[in-house]
């Protein structure tokens, strides 16, 4: 199963990573600025976007997380997809 991954895989993964990074930054910012409504709106927008991206990624390339945080396909192939360090 070492067919090379399509370029869209990397594109989508990078987009997911960028949104995740922005969410981490906003979380840290909001911890010290709880009343900043603009940032909270931005945070919720990005959280929504992150859900959509994760859903799209998992539909195409397999689960991102385990223990029920992601759906599994019919042949339980969570361990077969290329691992993050192999990607």
């Amino acid at each position: 199963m070492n067919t090379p991954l399509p370029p869209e895989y990397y594109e989508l993964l990078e987009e997911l990573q960028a949104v995740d990074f922005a969410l981490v930054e906003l979380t840290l910012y909001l911890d010290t600025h709880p009343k900043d409504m603009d940032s909270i709106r931005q945070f919720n927008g990005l959280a929504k976007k992150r859900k959509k991206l994760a859903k799209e990624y998992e539909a195409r390339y397999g689960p991102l997380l385990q223990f029920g945080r992601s759906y599994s396909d019919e042949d339980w192939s969570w361990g077969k997809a290329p691992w993050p360090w192999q990607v």
Partner: protein
Amino acid sequence: MSQKERCHFTPMKTYDVYHGPFDPCPPIGHKYYSTPPHLYMGFQPRCLEQFPIREALFRGTLWKELYDPYENPYRKRGELR
């Protein structure tokens, strides 16, 4: 306090190490230390300008004011001490 009024600062500072007459080792000369933007910012103001999300991932921060790239000052003169 808008961006313009904020004091201008250098992200890197230097000091000279004293070299005694009986010091067997060669003089170290200049040493550099980093002074990142957050030192000059205090409590982070609201509505700071942000990088676009994709770019923020590669810049390492979401806020333009806190961006602090590191260039190796020791490599400036070509030789790496």
